[in-house]
């Protein structure tokens, strides 16, 4: 196992080093600086903004919901949140061009509202069904009323 790991790790280092060479050898310094800014910005925005926003929603919003609604709400949040994030380029229509009507040719905001409505209705229906089932599928055996923590 140890040998395998060393061999695999070495292959990874070589492959990555090839990528670094590709990156550094084909563009001028201004472009590389811009690429570095984008690389760093992704990590900072995730670790410093998105992750913390998710923590806050979990800590502040989740305890306000009825217990039967918490699990469906988490599922709905993960689906709608991640899909909304990946739809940012189309929702903002940043690449739209007046000379090309075939590009970004949908009403993405209406699409988002429709998707969000489907998810919210599903979450509500699931919550009502769970609450009628009398907590048989409750989130916590024993039903301690502790606020959810990160």
């Amino acid at each position: 196992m140890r040998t395998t790991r060393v061999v695999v790790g070495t292959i990874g280092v070589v492959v990555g080093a090839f990528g670094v060479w590709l990156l550094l050898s084909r563009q001028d310094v201004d472009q590389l600086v811009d690429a570095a800014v984008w690389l760093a910005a992704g990590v900072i925005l995730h670790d410093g903004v998105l992750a913390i926003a998710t923590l806050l929603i979990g800590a502040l919003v989740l305890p306000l919901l009825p217990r039967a609604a918490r699990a469906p709400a988490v599922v709905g949040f993960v689906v709608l949140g991640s899909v909304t994030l990946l739809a940012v380029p189309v929702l903002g229509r940043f690449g739209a061009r007046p000379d090309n009507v075939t590009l970004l040719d949908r009403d993405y905001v209406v699409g988002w509202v429709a998707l969000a409505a489907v998810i919210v209705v599903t979450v509500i229906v699931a919550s009502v069904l769970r609450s009628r089932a009398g907590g048989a599928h409750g989130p916590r055996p024993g039903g301690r009323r502790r606020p959810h923590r990160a």
Partner: protein
Amino acid sequence: MRALPIRLPAETDFRSRLRSAAVTARVGTWLGICFTICFATGLISHYAQNVSQPIPFPTNPSWGYRVTQGLHVVTGTAAVPLLLVKLWTVYPRLFIRPPKNARRLLLEVLERGSIAVLVAGAIFQLASGLANSAQWYPWTFSFRATHYAIAWITIGALVVHIAVKLPIIRGALTSDVEDTAYDRPTATEDGPISRRGLLRTTWLAGGVAVLVTAGSTVPMLRRVSVFGVRSGDGPAGIPINKSAAAARVAPAATSSAYRLTVAYGEQEVSMTRGELLAMDQSSESLPIACVEGWSASGTWTGVRVRALLDLVDAPPGSEVRVVSLQESGPYRQTVLQGNFADDDRTLLALSLNSEPLALDHGYPARLIAPNRPGVLQTKWVSRLEVAA
């Protein structure tokens, strides 16, 4: 009085037992599969766009590039929820205090460094790829060169990461998802859903991500793909990427002075569009498959490129320089490799789906070849040239 509770959290502050290596390893497996497909199909796309191809890029199957590039964008899109959930499960590790022992500190720095590269690369690839698929370029670097280089860096960092974590990955994947063997000691609190529930939620999010975007390349999903970059509409039922207005070709393309010139060394033949229409016409059903991931199939009618090359006695296997009426731009001139030029399905198309080619589709004449990136299917063709 208590001090304000604002301080950097410690790893032990995170109590949810959902943030477990048992979840990380399972989501990570599918994320690794998505990244591997993205990398392989990305290499194919990069090679297909290379001018020099020591091993000729195949002309078969004609829909090959449509599938590989569609998969590239679909798996990249599905990877977004997977990456977000995976990062969520390991977020507490960001706050582990560094060890004091110098040797262990060095190992820790190396491991964290490789993870920083992996996370930065993964986020960069997904974000830049999604922006590119919506034709949004809010940066100054070259998308193709940078996305390609960082793909190698990210895959390298992923392989290193797998090597480092192999014992945990193996252990976690061979035991039950609720097993606590690899959990942090403080991660004991039940979450609002179970670990299995979180995994199912993640697969669901990945599936929804695909459904709401893939309509740009899978026609049967067009109605549900509310975030599809293109609905599939356009002149003659096919969307366009670069318009005649953007390429500034309209005056030259509609001028009665337009001639297609075919040249082989000193030999040259020039033809009007009418003369091209008078030649033997062939029809082929071929997809236009863009590097941005959208694609659509159409029936193209026009003259076989090989028949045009025969007019100037260009030998079989000749590489053809295809020149557009565009005055500038990286794709004003493209190279059509010999195996593509000789393929019977490679046409200088004059009409699409029984309508004369629209100006935005490349009127008066455009290249269409099987299994080729759309960016190389040159529009507004003015010259086909074989070096003597």
